[in-house]
């Protein structure tokens, strides 16, 4: 990215942090957290930083004009020591739901490819149309369908967190990631002190992975109908019933079918069911107890959008609600073959055009490497 673009993004981000610092909730127990940040055009990752309080956090923003800021979900005795000397105490439970992992059929329609060799920008391709290189970088643009599907996963997740895992609603926070997904935080739970292995078991539970037929009533020997789950049951038994039997009237007939098809076929059924009712979270994120996450309230430099707390996930519209950069017009040279919407305004498609668009849209395109300041 060239200097002018960087200067533009740094200025816009700075203004945001100056005017909207209240959108950054000071993390609980700040001195026990590890912070990190990156700057534009630098691959260096500043990590292992400890901060005393909100003031020092503010200073970090003002002094470094970072492109991205991160904070650990873990609490350490010595957050600024190297990883193996930090003395891990506990960590909030975090889940990552990303539209990218849902891989919906609409995805190719709102994805553009940038050639790493010749910089040619085209609609979703696996090979550059200009130089035939297959080293392409993919950028996905706003899509309502993808966002809605992610919201469905978030709702499935919170239902399990509350009903199965007994987490108080007040201890769950849902954040828009600033790009294409959500981060769900769980605070003060019985799981704070669990290590990576135990968290991975929670992940399997939530994703409905590793279920055996016996758990859902199918026995290897002498299976009988009375052991199958029913609708009114709590937990996975109830959810399984809804998915597999559909309605109360069909239950009996379907159980007969399941019994007839036998044990190994039931195993296949479980795998299939897992795809449908398991929550699509990124398992590695939840398992990693030393990770640093984008700081809530900070800007995601992949989009210029804010990682924002969602109080009403149903109504939440990330491409409006999380778009905080100003609307002063900027002249850019843009190539974006796909149309997109920000702040309820349509943009594009742009075919190597010099245009004047609001700062937030210009920042969005520049972050996605689809435009430069003209």
């Amino acid at each position, binding site marked *: 990215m060239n200097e002018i673009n960087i200067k533009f993004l740094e200025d816009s981000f700075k203004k945001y942090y100056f005017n909207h610092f209240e959108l950054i909730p000071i993390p609980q127990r700040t001195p026990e957290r590890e912070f990190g940040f990156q700057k534009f055009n630098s691959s260096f990752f500043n990590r292992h930083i400890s901060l005393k309080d909100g003031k020092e956090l503010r200073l970090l923003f003002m002094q470094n004009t970072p492109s991205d800021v991160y904070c650990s979900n873990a609490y350490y005795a010595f957050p600024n020591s190297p990883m193996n000397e930090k003395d891990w105490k506990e960590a909030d439970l975090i889940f990552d739901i990303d539209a990218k992992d849902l891989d919906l059929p609409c995805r190719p329609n709102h994805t553009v490819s940038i050639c790493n060799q010749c910089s040619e920008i085209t609609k979703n391709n696996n090979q550059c149309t200009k130089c035939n290189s297959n080293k392409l970088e993919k950028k996905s643009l706003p899509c309502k369908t993808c966002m809605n599907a992610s919201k469905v996963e978030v709702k499935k997740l919170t239902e399990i967190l509350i009903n*199965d895992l007994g987490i108080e609603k007040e201890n769950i926070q849902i954040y828009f990631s600033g790009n294409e997904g959500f981060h769900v935080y769980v605070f003060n739970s019985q799981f704070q002190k*669990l290590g990576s292995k*135990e968290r991975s078991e929670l992940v399997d*539970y939530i994703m409905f*992975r590793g279920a055996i037929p016996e758990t859902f009533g199918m026995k290897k020997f002498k299976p009988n109908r009375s052991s199958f789950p029913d609708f009114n049951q709590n937990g996975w*038994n109830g959810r399984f019933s809804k998915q597999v039997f559909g309605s109360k009237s069909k239950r009996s007939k379907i159980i007969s079918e399941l019994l007839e098809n036998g044990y190994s076929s039931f195993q296949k059924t479980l795998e299939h069911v897992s795809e449908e009712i398991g929550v699509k979270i990124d398992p590695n994120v939840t398992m990693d107890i030393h990770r640093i996450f984008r700081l809530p309230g900070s800007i995601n430099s992949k989009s210029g959008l804010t990682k924002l707390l969602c109080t009403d996930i149903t109504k939440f519209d990330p491409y409006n609600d999380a778009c905080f950069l100003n609307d002063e017009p900027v002249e850019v040279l843009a190539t974006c073959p796909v149309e997109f919407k920000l702040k309820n305004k349509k943009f594009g498609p742009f075919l190597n055009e010099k245009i004047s668009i609001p700062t937030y849209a210009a920042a969005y395109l520049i972050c996605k490497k689809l435009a430069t300041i003209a």
Partner: protein
Amino acid sequence: MLVLGQDEKAKYPFLADAGEYLKDKGFSLTQFGSDPVLKLSVEKALHRIKVAAAGEVYKSDLIDGQASKDYVLEREVFSFLLAIVLIKLTGMSTLVKRFALAEARRAENYLEKDLGNASNKSKIDLATRIIYDLFNIEIIKENDFFVMPVSDYLKHSVTFHEREWKLINRHVENGKVFLTPDKTVRLIRKELGNYISSKITNAPKPSMIPGLEKIVDELITISKKLTPTYTITTGEYPPCIKHAIDVLEKGENLPHSGRFMLATFLLSRGQTVQQIAPLFKNAPDYNSRVTLYQLNHLAGTSGSATTYACPSCEKLKTQDLCFITKECDNIINPSQFGKKRK
């Protein structure tokens, strides 16, 4: 600290304060070497260790978990305390390991019975107290189940390999896991064994008690005979086999298919039935006669003329028994492991 009733001390002697108990009854350790009446307790202790060394669980004189007479109870507790003294005197770690395991099994049976005893609330209370005091897990009875926080369940269940123990295969509600009495006790099996063995290890080593020298020598001989079978794990085994041995050594349940794989593999490596049988001793459902019979059957030494070969890697994959690593190097049967090197 738990206050134990008379019966409880006999069932869970590792919870009793050994020295206190002896003093209370007006005895000292040295008396056991000479007093003819106390001799009976010494014999019982010896028996207790021998049974454990053979991989079995000692059956006490308790009837329905109750001591019929005071002296029966006394002997139960004495024999346990003495067994520890004797084992310490031998200095053999193999005996510690086996004795702790067998005693854990024994306690497990009682815990399971006490938890499952719907009619006796005080028994249930005591069993749950023991589990809380020893392992810091708070379990509460809810109808026919015992419930515990999901996080406590996970801390213990992650060491299990069987899929049955995955959280997804348990009933989970409102932050709690629901378990039957037998699963509740199974969950803490390893810790119970560790607890008993650490109690033995940490007990001070007594000086030799005059009159017990012979018994100690006898135990050393027994222990030395046992030791070689433990060298069975070497680095030359494929991951699937190592894993199976691991599971058994932890006293966890290896499915039948896994036992079949392990036995046929070791037979193919030229081990004898007698060498292999002890491996299965830690299995929760171990029965020496049945095991020997089955092994002989596989080896083709009993009646049937066929010998069984180790299943293919492909087959083992479908049975969830394969734990492939780079070292497997594209072999098609575990028995080829390590032989394909150029």
